């Protein structure tokens, strides 16, 4: 793994040459105008890892120490990177690459001569969510996303792989899922591709964390039940008018009273765990629409036959039972071994129900509620010992601001667009402190109840054509918030952001542009 990390690091150096796109690689540098002195200068790098960890997990040690020591005649710079885990060393190389710059006058690279850096992340969970169900994203672009994550020391790629719209996940046990649910035969992630992606991420310090969202946000892919003797696996599929049965078209929700549905679920979980790492799983669990179940005769009949009602609380209970059985299937798929599961904030995870139905030793809650306007759930979850991940919509939804994609409104529901400054300013600890006071918030952080944060790019209005400029460089602002948790505001980070954006371009990404180039040449003069 270290050898691979070293190889990636060396490719960064070649990419710093402005003519890199000519494909001449190292020879771009060999024609440098630099002095003979430059040509004889050497940099030797040593990498050491203490522990054998090879998987990114919550709580994994990502710290590193990086030292640059010049020889007396300055002809040699010795770099040493020491870390407890591979991931720390990898991050150290990432930092080292940022201490090097291309010198336009000499055509060579320059490097900081002497430095000692001891560094570690403020939060253990630093992620970006990409949705590949509303629109399909080719696997090569997911690799580019992972590249971008690694340049920014983000460590989680939360893959919202399926939804009502489409089912691109190839299931070994249930090939009917993609047969019915993929947008086309070309829009499927094969088992090999996914395994390859997991490995690709691991080398780059990124965990590929799968989400299988249920019981809502399912539909296409589940239609084959009746014709194969499994009954209705999903209900209200494409029901109209859709606002009665779901939050966005097309509608669809699992049928919680169909025992066979749980077997299917179990098979799917097995397929997932064959491909992905088995310490953490995202179970979704958001936006269940009770009217969908309440208008399905099969379900209401079952409720009444079992002496239950069809009021809201009855459906909450039905959902909770679904969640329990689903988790049981997940655990079984993991050979009976318990694993952490993540759920979105929802009716089930709210103040009224969360402690009743969801154990804080199993479930991590991902908060997507607005941090200030509807954020009371946050102190409640913390007080009750839930580990949390912040994705509060107000700044951490990267899909906001564009034209509406449904209905006649002009801008989409979570407009306006979230500028990088807002992304940077959003501090999970401060949001909590807003409710609890600073001391309590600090305590919760120390107790490990704020695992970190994640920005989400829901893909209703995204595919590979525009995804990179929607994620970057805002994802870099997110990364600095989660790695350094700075007490300074975005203002002091602006020059760094603008420069880092160019670094992302050098490495081949297509990020958004933040300022006129003049501002990059004239640091700190483009302030309001």
């Amino acid at each position, binding site marked *: 793994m270290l050898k691979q990390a070293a190889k990636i690091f060396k490719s960064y150096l070649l990419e710093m040459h402005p003519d890199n796109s000519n494909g001449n690689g190292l020879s771009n540098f060999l024609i440098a105008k630099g002095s003979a002195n430059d040509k004889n200068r050497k940099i030797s790098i040593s990498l050491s890892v203490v522990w054998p960890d090879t998987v990114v997990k919550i709580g994994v040690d990502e710290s590193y120490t990086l030292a640059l020591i010049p020889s007396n005649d300055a002809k040699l710079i010795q770099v040493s990177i020491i870390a407890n885990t591979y991931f720390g060393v990898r991050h150290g190389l990432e930092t080292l690459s940022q201490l090097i710059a291309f010198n336009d006058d000499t055509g060579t690279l320059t490097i900081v001569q002497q430095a000692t850096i001891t560094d570690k992340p403020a939060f253990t969970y630093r992620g970006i969510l990409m949705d590949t169900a509303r*629109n399909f994203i080719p696997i090569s672009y997911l690799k580019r996303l992972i590249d971008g994550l690694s340049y920014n020391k983000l460590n989680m790629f939360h893959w919202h792989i399926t939804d009502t719209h489409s089912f691109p996940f190839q299931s070994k046990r249930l090939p009917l899922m993609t047969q019915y649910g993929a947008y086309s035969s070309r829009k499927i992630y094969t088992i090999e591709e996914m395994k390859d992606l997991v490995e690709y991420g691991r080398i780059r310090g990124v965990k590929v964390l799968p989400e299988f969202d249920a019981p809502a946000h399912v539909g296409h892919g589940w239609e084959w039940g009746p014709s194969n003797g499994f009954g209705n696996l999903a209900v209200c599929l494409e029901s109209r008018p859709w606002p009665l049965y779901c939050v966005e078209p097309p509608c669809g929700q699992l049928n919680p009273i169909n025992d066979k549905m749980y077997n299917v679920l179990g098979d799917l979980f097995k397929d997932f765990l064959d491909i992905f790492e088995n310490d953490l799983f995202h179970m979704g669990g958001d936006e269940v629409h009770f009217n969908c179940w309440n208008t399905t005769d099969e379900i209401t009949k079952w409720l009444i036959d079992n002496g239950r009602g069809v009021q809201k609380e009855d459906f909450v209970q039905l959902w909770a039972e679904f969640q329990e059985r689903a988790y049981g299937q997940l655990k079984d798929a993991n050979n009976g071994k318990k694993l952490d599961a993540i759920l979105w904030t929802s009716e089930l995870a709210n103040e009224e129900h969360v402690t009743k139905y969801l154990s804080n030793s199993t479930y991590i809650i991902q908060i997507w509620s607005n941090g200030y306007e509807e954020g009371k759930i946050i102190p409640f979850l913390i007080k009750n010992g839930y580990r949390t991940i912040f994705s509060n919509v107000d700044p951490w939804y990267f899909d906001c601001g*564009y034209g509406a994609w*449904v209905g*006649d409104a002009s801008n989409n529901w979570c407009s306006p667009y979230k500028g990088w400054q807002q992304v940077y300013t959003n501090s999970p600890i401060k949001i909590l402190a807003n409710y609890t006071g600073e001391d309590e918030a600090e305590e919760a952080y120390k107790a490990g109840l704020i695992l970190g944060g994640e920005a989400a790019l829901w893909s209703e209005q995204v595919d590979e*054509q525009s995804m990179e400029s929607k994620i970057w460089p805002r994802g870099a602002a997110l990364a600095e918030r989660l790695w350094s948790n700075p007490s300074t505001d975005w203002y002091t980070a602006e020059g760094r952001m603008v420069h880092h954006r160019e670094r992302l371009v050098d490495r081949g*990404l297509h*990020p958004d542009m933040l*300022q006129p180039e003049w501002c990059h040449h004239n640091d700190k*003069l483009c*302030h309001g």
Partner: protein
Amino acid sequence: MFYPQNVEITHIYAPHPSVKAMLGFAGNALLDTLFRMHPKSEGNSVFPTSSGGKGIEKNIVTISLTAQTQDVKISLNTDESYSLTIAPYYEGQGRRLHVEINAVTYFGARHGLETLSQLVAFDEVHECLQMVSQSTIHDQPSFKYRGLMIDTSRNFIPVKHLKKMVDGMAQNKLNFLHWHLTDSNSFPFYSKSVPQMTRYGAYSEAEIYSPKEVRDLILYSKLRGVKLLPELDAPAHAGNGWQWGPLEGLGDLALCVNAEPWRQFCGQPPCGQLNPLNQFTYIVLGEIYKDMLDLFDRDLFHMGGDEIYFQCWYNNAEIQNWQRNRSTFDLMDLWGHFQQTAFKKLKEANGGNYITPIVWTSDMTSRGRIHLNPVDYIIQVWTTGMSNEVKELLSENYKLIFSNLDSNYLDHGFGTWLGRDHLWQIKTWQDLYDNDLGKIVEFHLGVNRSREAFRNGQILGGEATLWSEKVDQHNLEMKLWPRSAAFAERLWTNPLNRSESVYPRLLHHRNRMVNRGIHADRIQPESCHQISGYCIDPYSVI
């Protein structure tokens, strides 16, 4: 059902060989587009040559193209209309379709081919193309001026990417690319007569447009029905590039270049404004005009003229003197003097021939109109559509191009680049689509006089602007498209309202653009494309 290799341009009629050659080019461009409709094509042909007994390879499409005049210049008078007929006929085995495109000018015929390409779709099952088999279309644009503006001074955009922008415009029958070439930030236009401009003003050696590149881009655009309209913004929005005056004994050509604190001297950093009292300023300006007119068409020129900050001028001793001698506190007269002298230089640069200047709305268009003769000037509106200034301009018979910022600013939103300033909502495709110029003019003038204004040709059309503070080649296309496609439909068809059919049409067209290599933004989930009509709000009434 047919294969693109069985499409043939059989006849080209034109009164001049150069028009014939252009039609040949446009015809070949259509064939190229057809080959690219195969999802696996990367510009090459991957269509099968035989259909295994289904006889698809026997079906043939023939196309004949006619342009009646030898007009090969796009102007505000160009006839862009065309007629297109598709009819089946019988001859030998297989099905035959004949397409006839007839237009007054090359540009109309080109538009006809663009429409034809939209009547063709890829057939996934048979791996061939399908086409509407019978149709007659008579089509012409509602507005003469259907433009996009790109700014290459805040950030440089490589020519290669400007060409892709032109590709996108051609696909949407947009006909004016307004090139905001220079600004106070940088001066990327290489001037043969005044090479100091780029030496001092370009961001780097690599960020310069050479005359050769510009000439090439102009030709590239013309073949695609797009006129390149240059803007040299003055007297404000000029700074970097103009610093060399004192060193070469010409005095200050520009004032307050990069001055700080910028808020005192300009609307956004970096500051800079031409020196209106230095005669050399006008001489240099004239030389640059000449260099530009050597390259661009000579009928229209954008002189900029927006956002003058008198504070910049006030600060200069010479200007203070000038002012004292005239006992006026208003520098509008000085600006007026600049504008008239600059216009004179422009005409001189055009060999004394008449040329129509365009200027932005500004302080001058609101209270210094005495300096702008409505017979000469076209005004580009960037106030809101409902601004009273629009009413005044209409009433005084100015010809207008609408870039009203409440809908036509493609750069709005996407976060601020300048501290807490410039926090706008993104202008969505819906905003652009809904910007009905008829309604704006009617709001100001009432029904009858509004009709008159249209009849008199006062309403030239519209332009969507992409200022480039937050744009370079990496995000250019997703910011332009498909919003500018919605904008194009507004100006070509001028629909009465935004009906539900726009969603699926735009979604489909967006995919068409992606297929042709444009990195357009996505506007809906693919499921909406597959289940047409489901992704609407059933309770909303448009």
